[in-house]
């Protein structure tokens, strides 16, 4: 039971770190930041999984918590690695992208467009719309989480 849980969380961390690293390469980050990108990706997604699965928190809000932690982590290590904080946090949040929700919304709308019988097609539309809203909410939570450290702590006045 506990072993199962630990394995589940370890796997969650590992695959998120792999996803973050892949995108870090795609975004051509400096080599010295690769490890931190992977670490932030793993930790952020792990926080999301834990808050969503063990606390009564819905996925969008859990995503906000995860990406906020990644945002703070980015700021924390940006100075040391001499990079802008987004270099660390942007690859870090990538594992939280709601791929399945977006996919279900797309397929749902496609099925709705092909459906002709009235009550069934209404159900398809409702399902697809709900997935679409979830997708938008989670994507917004990801982006807002990165901006939160700027809003709360790093409020330095702009030079211009």
């Amino acid at each position, binding site marked *: 039971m506990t072993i199962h849980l630990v394995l589940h969380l370890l796997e969650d961390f590992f695959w998120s770190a*792999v*996803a973050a690293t892949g995108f870090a390469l*795609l975004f*051509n*980050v400096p080599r010295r930041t690769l490890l931190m990108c992977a670490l932030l990706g793993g930790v952020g997604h792990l926080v999301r999984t834990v808050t969503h699965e063990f606390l009564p928190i819905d996925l969008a809000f859990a995503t906000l918590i995860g990406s906020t932690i990644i945002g703070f982590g980015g700021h924390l290590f940006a100075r040391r690695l001499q990079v802008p904080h*987004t270099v660390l946090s942007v690859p870090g949040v990538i594992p939280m992208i709601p791929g*399945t929700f977006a996919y279900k919304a797309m397929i749902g709308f496609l099925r709705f467009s092909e459906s002709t019988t009235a009550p069934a097609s209404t159900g398809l539309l409702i399902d697809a719309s709900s997935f679409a809203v979830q997708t938008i909410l989670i994507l917004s939570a*990801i982006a807002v989480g*990165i901006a939160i450290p700027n809003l709360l702590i790093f409020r330095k006045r702009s030079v211009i």
Partner: protein
Amino acid sequence: MNNSGKKPALTHEALTDIIDLALWAGQLLLQNGASSHRVEETVHQLGTGLGCDWMDVLVSHNAIVVTTVSAGDFRTKIRRVPKHGVDLTAVSAVNRLRYRISDNTLDPPQLRNELQRISTRKPMYPFWLTAVMIGLACGAFCRLFGGDYEAFALTAVASTVGMFVRYLLLREEFNTYLVVIAAAFITSLIAAMGKYIGIHDYPVALAAGVLMLIPGVPLINMVLDFVRGHINVGISRGILGLLITLSIAIGLLLAVSITGVPGL
């Protein structure tokens, strides 16, 4: 700036040089995925650090306008930034120049050399490595979405091939949206083949495979721009992100309707 007004007046040539360098740095930032605030701040700090009294910057989605002031004399210049990509090493390299300018350890000729070096630098990672790692990353998504290891392998192959398709088409200078549609189509087509070779979780591979094309940087920059008050650039970035996302959907749905629509 606490010493504004006390700086010596710049010659016409010096002012031209500074405005060129500052615009170059701004262009490198904007075309490689920096937020508007960072572009504005960096261009301003480079200009004032090199001896201007003041520098005003207007960032748009595909152009930067700069007005620079020295001893009452002012000049304005526009630079177009037509191509957008993501290269965070370039962004961080330009960002570091800004600190060297404010430490006074960089003069205009050195800055020109540095910018030249950043502009002509080769990518940090060889393309094949990026393609393979992106394949693994999309496979990782497949595992996160609950797919088994067969689906993981399927996703990894599909996404790696999709990356090569994207690379080849981009090299031939095809339209951005067409490239995304084609890459999403090929990736999804390979993932959908899982149906015929008996991979049970192939719908998960379909959902995970195209995620490499997600416009993550424009979408995140959109929110960062909104928060900092760059509403107009934010809207442009949002529309770009939306169009790319729609292109992914078109490619995916084309492949899915050819091979038969699966559930998840």
